[in-house]
C-alpha cells in the first residue's frame, strides 16, 4: 500500500527580550544556576506577574509578518501541573484567545515548486526551569534561570507531507524569526525547539489518523531523521497488523530512534482557566500599524527584488535571502563592486564555502563585505584575474590590510604591459617547438596548451586574453 505522511509542527522560540515574560529577571543564556530568578520566578507567596511589553511587541511582530490574524483581545490562561522546575505549579500560557491567529507561510520545496503551509496560531507562554540530575547523589537540582523566559509557540496545520518539507518549513520559519530579530532561534541552545506531530494514512485518504508527538528534537537534521524514523516505525506497526497509539515519544539522536514516554505523563488534565492575575491584553489598530511600519523587508519580498533589481536567478536569490545578514552582505558587495552577478557568485560560492568550513555566521567572517567588494572591483578593472582573486581571498583571511596592499605586496598584479607579455610569449614559442609545429599544421586546440604555459611562466599574472591574442598573431 502507498502511504501518505501527515506532519504538523509545534515550534517554541524564546523571544529575545532583556527580561522575563512576567518578571524583571535577566534572560541571558548560560548564567550560573539560579542567578537569574527573582521572587516571582521562585513563586514566592504573594508575588504577581506583570507582562513584558517587549514580548508582546515581538509576538505581534511575528503575527503581522506572516499576515496572520492578530488577537485584539488575547487572554492568558493557567496550565496546571506539578513539576519541580515549574515553581508556581502552573504555566502561564494562552489557550482560547492567542495573540496570533490563523496565518500561513509559503515555502519553496526541493523541486522548486512553492507550497503554502497553514499556521494555526501562535501564543505567548512562560518557559519552565531545568531539573539537573547530575552530581547531586540521589537528589535533583533545580535551576530556575530559564523559568519565565518568554516563549512564542507557533503551531502549524497538518499540511506537511514529508520530513524534508518539515525541515524546509522550519528553516523558513527560522529565517523569518531572524529577519524580525525576535529570537536568536538557535536550536542547539534551545532558543528554538521543535515538537513534531506525525501520522501516516493510505494515499487518497482525507481523514487524519492517530498521531504521535515527537519531543526533544534539537537540530534541523534531527527533525528530518526523527520524522523519517517515526514514519518507518508507524508503517511497520500498521503493516504488521498493529495500531498506532496516541502518545508522546522522545527522539534519541545517539540511537537515531524515537521512544515512548510513560503514558502517565501524557494523560495530564491541565485544567486550563483564565489567569486572574492578568487582565486581557487589548491592542488596537494603531499598535498593529506601528508594528507593520517597523517591519524589515522579509525574505520573499527581498528575493523578488534581488531577481528584478540585480537580475539574479531563482536559486542564487533564494540562497542569498535565506538569512538577513547574508542578504545584507551581498547587497553591500553588489553595490560596492557594481557587478551583482559576480558578487552573487562570490558570496554563494567562496564565502559560503568559507562559512561552512569554519561553521561561522556571516558576522564571524574575517572578510567583511566592503573588502570583498574591492576584491571584485579589482577583477573587473583587470588588476587581477579571477583565479588570482581566489589567492587574494585566501590571503585576506589572515591579513586585515587593504585589498590593494595585499595585491601589491604579494606581487599578484596582473601583467598587462604588452612588452612583458611579448617576452613571455616569445619564450613559450621558443621552448615548445613541437606544439608550435602542430598548431601551424592546423591543430587549433594546441593554443590552449601554449596559453597555459605562458600563464604558468607568469605565475598566473599575465592577462590571459592578451596572451591569447599575441600568441595567435605570432604563430600566423
Amino acid at each position, binding site marked *: 500500500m502507498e502511504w501518505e505522511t501527515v506532519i504538523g509542527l509545534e515550534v517554541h522560540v524564546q523571544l529575545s527580550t532583556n527580561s522575563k515574560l512576567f518578571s524583571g529577571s535577566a534572560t541571558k543564556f548560560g548564567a550560573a544556576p539560579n542567578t537569574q530568578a527573582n521572587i516571582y520566578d521562585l513563586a514566592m507567596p504573594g508575588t504577581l506577574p506583570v507582562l513584558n511589553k517587549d514580548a508582546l511587541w515581538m509576538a505581534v511582530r511575528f503575527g503581522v509578518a506572516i499576515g496572520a490574524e492578530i488577537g485584539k483581545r488575547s487572554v492568558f490562561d493557567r496550565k496546571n501541573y506539578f513539576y519541580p522546575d515549574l515553581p508556581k505549579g502552573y504555566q502561564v500560557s494562552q489557550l482560547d484567545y492567542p495573540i496570533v491567529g490563523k496565518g500561513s507561510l509559503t515555502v519553496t520545496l526541493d523541486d522548486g515548486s512553492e507550497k503554502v503551509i497553514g499556521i494555526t496560531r501562535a501564543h505567548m507562554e512562560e518557559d519552565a526551569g531545568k531539573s539537573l540530575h547530575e552530581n547531586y547523589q540521589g537528589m535533583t537540582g533545580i535551576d530556575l534561570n530559564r523559568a519565565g523566559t518568554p516563549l512564542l509557540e507557533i503551531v502549524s496545520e497538518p499540511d506537511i507531507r514529508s520530513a524534508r518539507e518539515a525541515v524546509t518549513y522550519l528553516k523558513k520559519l527560522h529565517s523569518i524569526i531572524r529577519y524580525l530579530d525576535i529570537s536568536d532561534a538557535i536550536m542547539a541552545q534551545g532558543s528554538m525547539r521543535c515538537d513534531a506531530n506525525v501520522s501516516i494514512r493510505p494515499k487518497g485518504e482525507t481523514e487524519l489518523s492517530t498521531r504521535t508527538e515527537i519531543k526533544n528534537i534539537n537540530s534541523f537534521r534531527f527533525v528530518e531523521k526523527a520524522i523519517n524514523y517515526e514514519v518507518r516505525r508507524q508503517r511497520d506497526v500498521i503493516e504488521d497488523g498493529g495500531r498506532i497509539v496516541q502518545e508522546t515519544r522522545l527522539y534519541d539522536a545517539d540511537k537515531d530512534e524515537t521512544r515512548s514516554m510513560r503514558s502517565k505523563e501524557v494523560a495530564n488534565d491541565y485544567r*486550563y482557566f483564565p489567569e*486572574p492575575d492578568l487582565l486581557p491584553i487589548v491592542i488596537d489598530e494603531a499598535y498593529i500599524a506601528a508594528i507593520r511600519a517597523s517591519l524589515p523587508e522579509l525574505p520573499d519580498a527581498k528575493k523578488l527584488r534581488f531577481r528584478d533589481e540585480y537580475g539574479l536567478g531563482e536559486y542564487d536569490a533564494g540562497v542569498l535571502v535565506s538569512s538577513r545578514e547574508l542578504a545584507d552582505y551581498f547587497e553591500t558587495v553588489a553595490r560596492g563592486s557594481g557587478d551583482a552577478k559576480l558578487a552573487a557568485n562570490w558570496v554563494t560560492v567562496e564565502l559560503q564555502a568559507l562559512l561552512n568550513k569554519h561553521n561561522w555566521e556571516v558576522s564571524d567572517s574575517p572578510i567583511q563585505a566592503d573588502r570583498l567588494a574591492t576584491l571584485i572591483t579589482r577583477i573587473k578593472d583587470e588588476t587581477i584575474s579571477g583565479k588570482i582573486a581566489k589567492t587574494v581571498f585566501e590571503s585576506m583571511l589572515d591579513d586585515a590590510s587593504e585589498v590593494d596592499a595585499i595585491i601589491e605586496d604579494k606581487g599578484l598584479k596582473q601583467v598587462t604591459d604588452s612588452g612583458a607579455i611579448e617576452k613571455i610569449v616569445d619564450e613559450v614559442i621558443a621552448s615548445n617547438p613541437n606544439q608550435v609545429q602542430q598548431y601551424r599544421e592546423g591543430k587549433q586546440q594546441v593554443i590552449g596548451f601554449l596559453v597555459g604555459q605562458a600563464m604558468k611562466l607568469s605565475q598566473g599574472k599575465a592577462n590571459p586574453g592578451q596572451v591569447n591574442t599575441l600568441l595567435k598573431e605570432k604563430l600566423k
Partner: protein
Amino acid sequence: MIEKTVAELSVALASGDISSVELTQTYLDRIAELNTELNAFITVCDESALDQARAADAARANGEAGALLGIPMAHKDIFCTQGISTTCGSRMLQNFVSPYDATVVERFKAAGAVTLGKTNMDEFAMGSSNENSFFGPVRNPWDTNRVPGGSSGGSAAAVAAGLCAMATGTDTGGSIRQPASFCGITGFKPSYGRVSRWGMIAFASSLDQAGTLCQSAEDAALMMNVMAGLDSKDSTSIDRDVEDYTATLDDSLDGLKIGIPRQHFAQGLNAEVEQAIRDALKEYEKLGASIREIDLPNNHLSVSAYYVVAPAEASANLSRYDGVRYGYRCENPLDLEDMYKRSRSEGFGDEVKRRIMVGTYALSAGYYDAYYRKAQKIRRLIKNDFDAAFEEVDIIVGPTSPHTAFELGAKSDPVAMYLEDIYTIAVNLAGLPAISIPGGMVNGLPIGMHLVGSDFAEARVLNIAHQFQQQTDWHCHKPAAFRQEG
C-alpha cells in the same frame, strides 16, 4: 488611651500628649496580658515595634507629620513582611519568613505606622469563624465562647479588644466585614483593584481585596489614604486617581437614596438582627435619606457561584506549596510524588484541602463548562443586578450577617459555614466597595450593618458610614471584659 480612635490618637501624638513609644508599649503590654485568652496574634514584634515607635517619635521631633505617624497597628498574617514570619494561618508556612514586604505593608511603613505583630486568621483566608487556623481559634472579645468571625478574625478581635489601634485584613467573600460585624467594629473592603495585592498571599485572585479593620469610618478613611493607589507590581490594580477619603466624610446625606434588597431581608435573617437594622435605617431617614426596596434577583446564586470560582482559583494559587523551595516539607520522602503528596497532606488543613479538591474538580476536563464557565456567567448576572440597582439608588444597605457571633464549634457542616457569607459574597463577585459598621446590639453582642457602594465609590461609602457614626454611638460600645483601661 486604648479607647481612642486612630483619628484621636493622631491628635494626641501630634500635640505631644503621648509618644509613640508610650502608646506602643501600652499596646504591647495589653497583648502580653490578653492575647493568651484571645489568640488574636500569631506573631508579636516587641522589639521592632519599639524601634519603629522610636523612629516615629524622632521623625516627629524632626518636624515630620502624618495622620498615621507612630500609630501602632497589626497586619493580618496574610501580608508578607520582610524579616517577620508570615504564616497565612497554615502549618505550610509556619516557618516562612518573607524576603520582601507587601505593598500594603510598605505603604504603612512609609507612613510611619508601627507594626505590633501579625494577626491570626483562617488558614489561607478560608473560613468564616477563624476556627480553621493552624495556630488555633481566635476568641471573640464580647464572649470568649464565641467566634470572632473570619477569615480576618485575629485583626477584628485585636481591634475590638484594644490590642492595636487599627489592623489590615483581606476580604474574598466577606472576610473583613463578617468579623467586623461579629466583633462590633468597622470593617471596610474597597473596590477590587483599589489596593495592591502585591505581597498579599493569594486565595482567590479575582476576588481578594485588602481592606481595613478599625473603630470608625473616619479611621478607615485615614487608612485608605495610605493604602489605596495604583501599583505597577499588580496588573489588576487600577490606574485611577486616589481621593482624599477624609475630605468628603462630612458631606450631607440630604437626598441620599438608600436601597434595601428584598433578598437580604428574607428567610434566614434573625428577627432581632432585622429589627436592629430597620431601626438603624431610621437614623438615615433623619439625615435626609429616602429608603426603597430593591431587587438583587440573582443574589441567591452568589454563594454557589463563589464556591466554584474561589476554590478553582485557589486550587492553582496553592499549587506552589509543594515542599520544593520553601515552606513545609514532609520527613524522608521516598520520591517526588511522595514528597508532593505528604508535604501537601500534612501541611494543609482540612478546609484548605477540601477547597483545593472542589476547585480541581470544577476545572477538570468535562466539568469546566458545567461549573467554572457557568459560575462566571452567574458572576456577570450578579454584577448586572448591582449595576441596575445603582441606576436607582446611591447605596445598598442591609445586615452584614444573618445573625450575631455564634459559639465555637457550632457550625461543623462546611455548607452551613459557607452560608455565613450570604450577604457579603455577591459584593466580591461584583468587585464593589462595602463596609460593615456596628448598627445595634442584641443579647450583649454587636450587629453589623452592611453598606455597599457602586464601583470605586469608596469616598461615598465612607461618608455615608461616617454620618451614621456621627449620629449614633454603636461603634463606641466596647466589650467590657477587654476595654477597661489598665
